[in-house]
């Protein structure tokens, strides 16, 4: 038996999303004060991160892309060490060598954040091959965007994972944008999920702004990967609420599109549901938000107080 966690409650899901949002808001605040490293935030995509990661077991492994903070935090990353890494401090997950764009956290099973769009897709079959050959029941989750899905390596990755029966749960966060280009300009059709059929792979599209729906879909998908040791493609239909990177700029986006998606904000949706059901009150919600913000204040204090790496270590660790 592999270890598993109890299924998260709706309040757990909300709490995790609030923490991610508070983290990104802290990043934005740092930017407004500037200077601060460029960061790609995942505001608006919290339900995907929390829904998918909550469906995982501790021995599952994760590869992700440049918008990885939500995935890492949902996996239990310490926000202080995460921020410290973004700020290039030696207390960061990668000793300040990664910065925001390539964070790994082996202790959390996070193998890679790739800022080469598609890099995560290229490594995922190999990580899953290790799982197959070295034993263990864990599966490998690979997060990527609709932009990455338009690359050749996406097709190479799905094809090989299918031909070799590798336990990879591919999760496409279709957030409508590929940096400064709308997906409509670069791909045929709206969805990535149907492409999986060409590789003999099952797939599912889920409302990526509904944390409960994502959790349910991801739990089913992950269970199928666990049982069959075969890959599966889950597409989460969601939206990047901020510009491609900080500082925020969405001047090139149709304001009507932004408004329509803001109305489907994943956090507000779950809050409304919980308020309606009586699981939350206005006060308890405010307390949750305050708790998330306080955690990020503490994280920011930790990161800001952390030392930079010593320049004498510049070339340490290039080779094993």
């Amino acid at each position, binding site marked *: 038996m592999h270890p598993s966690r109890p299924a998260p409650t709706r309040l757990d899901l909300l709490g995790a999303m609030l923490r991610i949002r508070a983290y990104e808001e802290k990043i934005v605040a740092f930017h407004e004060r500037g200077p601060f490293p460029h960061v790609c935030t995942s505001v608006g995509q919290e339900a995907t991160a929390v829904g998918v990661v909550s469906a995982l077991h501790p021995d599952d492994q994760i590869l992700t892309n440049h918008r990885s903070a939500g995935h890492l935090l949902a996996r239990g990353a310490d926000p202080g060490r995460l921020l410290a890494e973004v700020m290039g401090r030696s207390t*960061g997950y990668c000793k300040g060598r*990664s910065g925001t764009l390539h964070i790994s956290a082996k202790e959390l099973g996070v193998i*890679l954040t790739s800022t080469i769009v598609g*890099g995560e897709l*290229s490594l995922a079959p*190999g990580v*899953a091959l290790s799982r197959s050959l*070295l034993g263990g029941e864990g599966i490998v989750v690979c997060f990527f965007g609709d932009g990455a899905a338009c690359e050749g*390596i996406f097709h190479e990755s799905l094809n090989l994972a299918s031909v070799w029966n590798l336990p990879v749960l591919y999760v496409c966060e279709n957030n409508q944008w590929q940096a400064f280009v709308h997906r409509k300009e670069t791909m045929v059709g709206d969805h990535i999920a149907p492409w999986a059929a060409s590789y003999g792979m099952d797939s599912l599209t889920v409302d990526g702004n509904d944390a409960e729906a994502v959790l349910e879909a991801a739990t089913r998908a992950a269970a199928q990967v666990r049982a069959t040791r075969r890959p599966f493609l889950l597409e989460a239909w969601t939206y990047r609420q901020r510009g491609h990177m900080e500082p925020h700029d969405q001047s090139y986006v149709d304001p009507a599109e932004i408004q329509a998606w803001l109305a489907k904000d994943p956090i507000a949706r779950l809050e409304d549901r919980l308020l309606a059901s009586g699981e939350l009150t206005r006060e308890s919600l405010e307390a949750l938000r305050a708790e998330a913000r306080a955690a990020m204040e503490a994280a920011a204090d930790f990161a800001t107080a952390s030392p930079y790496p010593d320049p004498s270590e510049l070339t340490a660790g290039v080779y*094993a």
Partner: protein
Amino acid sequence: MSLMTAHEALDQAVAEEMQRDARVLMFGEGVATKRKHLLDAFGPQRVRNTPLAEGIIAGTAAGAAATGLRPVVDLLFAPFLCFAMDEIVNSAGKLRYMSGGQFSFPMVVVTMTGGGWTVGAQHNHNLEAWFVHSPGLKVVMPSTPEDFKGLMKAAIRDENPVLFFMDMALAFVPGEVPEGEVFVPLGQAAIRREGTEVTLISYAKTVHTCLAAAETLAEQGISAEVIDLRTLKPLDEATILASVRKTGRAVVVHEASRLCGVGAEVTALLSEQAFDALKAPVVRLTGPDAPAPSSYPLEQAFTPQAEAIVQAAAQLVARSPEVAPIW
């Protein structure tokens, strides 16, 4: 001793390492078909054919290496490395450092290069310097079957990604390989012939050209030392420097083109660290800045030949003052 080709030696090394360590596996286009004895010995889990997709082959190797396996991948011909550059250079080469040392990438990428098979520029491109220039990678390019075996074993056991270039002209030339364990540590050059007046520095097939040139030079009364670099990264600077400090002259020979090639690095090393010992400028004999031609005579013209090495070495010896000035 037994006589075998570089191709067979490489195979033997992989088989022995797979025997020794269950984490070693090999995959690539046609690997399980062409190396059927490996498939028979180790089964389809550890010896695999892949699609014609170098990016995912290299990426899968990197992902597997990061998480506990020790893959050897065959990417066939060096120009195909262009499809695998991201995975080799950006992932395998960089992620150890970027992760603050959390992951290692013990993997070997085997690839063929060099003139001799008249396959032309899309199958023959001496790209080794690209990878020497990339942090986190190691690069080997052997010249004898014994070294193919010994360096492959060292490459498989190394914790870092190693690019293993096979000069095609050497693939099926037999040579002596000792019985029992053959292991050649990465980063150690070999002195193939001792000499006192000029050092010929090379790797892969042109080592043999240098040895032929050294014979001719000996007939002319010139004593040439021949160094086989074997590993291009890490480069055995000590052996190069010691030899040239002794001889005072150097000819660096390789088939890859000159600009920013390995020869440029060796020459710079000598000017930085052995300047006082030099009796004459360092000479480079390399391939031209042109795609590799297919036609046999053009391929030969592309590759440094022994006569040119003899001529360069003889000129270096002739021009240099053997006796110190008397003023």
